[in-house]
């Protein structure tokens, strides 16, 4: 294994992670809800009416949080150029299908579930981390892309 230390950003990652933890804490303390983004996204179209609005508000907030960060730090991101659509579209599809089948994603299982030591979330997180690593390995070395 080789470390990529030019791009290593532990401090901003740690503080950013703590903000995510704060957001999940407030949502649980005030609204009694788990900050699992895949579940919230899914519920926008599927839940009963009175359950929709807070989900739309959370998703709008996510969007606005990124917009305001961009306004405060212009030029912080350089978007990825010309990433192949044949990886992007099936990739997104599998993210959607898999997070429904597995009842959660990085936020719901990885941050909220692990916090309460849920066995389901611990196993799910280990599984998607491992399959994510395998997937990148196969794309890079098997297909020679990226």
């Amino acid at each position, binding site marked *: 294994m080789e470390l*990529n230390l030019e791009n*290593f950003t*532990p401090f901003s*990652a*740690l*503080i*950013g*992670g703590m*903000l*995510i*933890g*704060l957001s*999940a804490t*407030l*949502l649980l*303390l*005030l*609204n*009694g*809800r788990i900050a699992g*983004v895949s579940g919230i*996204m899914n519920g926008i179209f*599927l839940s009963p009416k009175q359950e929709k*609005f*807070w*989900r739309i*508000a*959370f*998703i709008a907030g*996510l*969007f*606005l*949080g*990124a*917009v305001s*960060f961009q306004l405060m730090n212009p030029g912080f*991101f350089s*978007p*990825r150029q010309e990433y192949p*659509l044949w990886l*992007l*579209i099936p*990739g*997104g*599809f*599998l993210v959607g*299908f*898999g997070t429904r089948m597995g*009842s959660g994603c990085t*936020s719901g299982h990885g941050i909220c579930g692990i*916090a309460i030591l849920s066995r389901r979330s611990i*196993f799910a*997180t280990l599984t*998607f981390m491992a*399959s*994510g*690593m*395998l*997937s*990148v390995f196969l794309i890079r070395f098997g297909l020679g892309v990226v």
Partner: protein
Amino acid sequence: MARNFIALVCGIIFGLGLSLSQMINPNKVIGFLDVAGKWDPSLAFVMMGALLVTMISFRLVLKRSRPILETGFHVSQKTKVDRPLLIGAAIFGIGWGMSGYCPGPAVAGMGLKISEAFIVVASIYVGFFAHKWTSSFSKNI
């Protein structure tokens, strides 16, 4: 109304966290998953930072009889590690590695007008509906 406002504020904080930590940057995500190549461990720190907070706070919050603005906590009571959980998580991971996006960063990325984030969010929804469709189908057999 108050609950919707809180959800909005929580979403904003979440979006700021995803941006600052660069979780929103798919190159960074793929760098983290690329353990056999040039590994960038930064995103392990995102999870550590979040868990440092939630491991303490969730325990305290869940000691309360109820949340402040709701009558009860909406927390999954499931405990069984079953096949759909593991197969679903494995499928999600494959898609995560292919695209470089999990659901949160895909939504936040739309805020930065990144065109691929719109494509990923649309594909995620197709995946949601495909799952709903196949699971209703399998129940009918």
